[in-house]
């Protein structure tokens, strides 16, 4: 999978060794394409792969039984609902439970893929989750160009030179949710600056 991404698509993996430094982590990445999850997951070791769950939108991947089964089978995803919860199934709870079990998560706090190359505002979930679990570091990941390879609403994959840059694991320093979110966002944007 990684070789397919590297040779055919032209994805360059930068500093993926940083994934090996911590046992449990929350990967936080910008989101432009379905390839994002594959690019991140193909950088994980086999052991990590078993214990890492991407967080996916239940209203998109779970809207049919078949789709939800396939998504869970191939990516091990935890499906959550993006819309406001009605109290009974809070999406944060599902993520928190997985963390308590010692699992790692992959999170796209932008919520949806959006337009290629543009970053949207981060959702609150990541802030709450990190605030609840301050002993778990987050790993910022910045991906460039994936939206060109396979943008939203397209089925045809076109090769382009793209990057996946992994940052160092970081522990949060603040207890305020909105400060945490700003910090996470800053770390991801910093990775972009390093690429240029």
């Amino acid at each position, binding site marked *: 999978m990684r070789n397919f991404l590297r040779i055919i698509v*032209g994805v*360059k993996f930068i500093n993926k060794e940083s994934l090996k430094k911590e046992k449990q982590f929350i990967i936080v990445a910008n989101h432009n394409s379905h390839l994002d999850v594959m690019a991140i997951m193909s950088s994980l070791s086999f052991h990590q792969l078993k214990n890492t769950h991407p967080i996916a939108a239940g209203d998109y991947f779970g809207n049919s039984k078949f789709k939800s089964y396939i998504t869970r089978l191939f990516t091990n995803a935890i499906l959550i609902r993006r819309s406001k919860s009605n109290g009974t199934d809070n999406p944060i709870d599902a993520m928190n439970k997985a963390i308590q079990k010692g699992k790692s998560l992959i999170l796209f706090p932008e919520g949806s893929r959006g337009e*290629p190359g543009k970053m949207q505002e981060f959702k609150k979930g990541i802030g709450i989750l990190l605030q609840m679990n301050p002993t778990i570091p987050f790993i910022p990941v910045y991906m460039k160009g994936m939206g*060109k390879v396979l*943008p939203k609403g397209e089925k*045809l994959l*076109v090769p*382009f*030179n*793209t990057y996946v840059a992994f940052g160092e694991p970081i522990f949060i320093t603040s207890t305020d949710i909105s400060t945490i979110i700003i910090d996470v966002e800053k770390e991801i944007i910093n990775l972009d600056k390093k690429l240029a």
Partner: protein
Amino acid sequence: MNLFQSEIYLQNKEVILIITLILGILIFSTSLFFIWGKIKPTSNLVELKTRTKSWWMMASIFIFATVVHPIVSFIAFGLLSFVSFREINSISKNVREEDRRVIIWCYIAIPIQYFLAYKGWFNIFVIFIPVIMYVWIPFMLVIKGATEDIARSMSILPTQLMLTVFSISHLAFLLSLPELSGFNAGGRGLLLFIVFITEINDVFQFVWGKLFGRHKIIEKISPNKTWEGFIGGIVTTAIIGYFLRFLTPMNGTEAIMVSLLIAFSGFVGDIILSAIKRDAGLKDTGTAIPGHGGILDRIDSLALTAPAFFYVIYNLYYV
């Protein structure tokens, strides 16, 4: 079919000689920089060392691809075109989002072009990209229907194909040329000659420029290009070409003239790609080969020398 027929190709004295020469130069420069670094530890050799390392890698891949079965060579050159096209296409800021489905046609053109080269169908090989794709791409763009900046895409995509696929495929076509009586080295010899001369020209233009470079040629595009480097480079290249003419059917005068042509077109290819990179806001086009920038930085001169050399040789000896 035995893909590793290297014994057969290695019976060819000329080819063995040039491969020995390439390896000799690499061993010489590696040990030179090693000793230099030991004697004067202060001197900054990091760039030169990474460059030599990359040359080792490229030379081994290239030599491997030329001495094994031709199919392997065609696939290798096809991959080179593929990676180069992807790079030039990715860095271009003028490719629109609406073009992505048309870009697929460009990728489809790569195996077709190399298939034509493999079959040696010269007449269609030579028009496939400059004529057929030149019409097909605008046609597909029109069918797609997004008219804003469409003329720009119509000209950019075929140009990118020309620079990375059409040009490089001439290297592969050399291997499909028929045998000439009294000329032993064959297509393989020609291929080794053009690649070796092109790269040696690059190296010597760089070296002469570093040593004596004063007067800049086109500072805006390529600040490292100087008249001293250019003239030193083409003279050195012509001399080396004269001595390597045993790889080709050329006589002494022809070898010198053709080497001068290669040196000049290598320079032109270099600055054309430099200008494209500048337009994209990049100095190096990628980071595929350490110390060399991207793939494009290595094939820039080949993009022009390969067709230039091919047509001279073809018209002199194969028509």
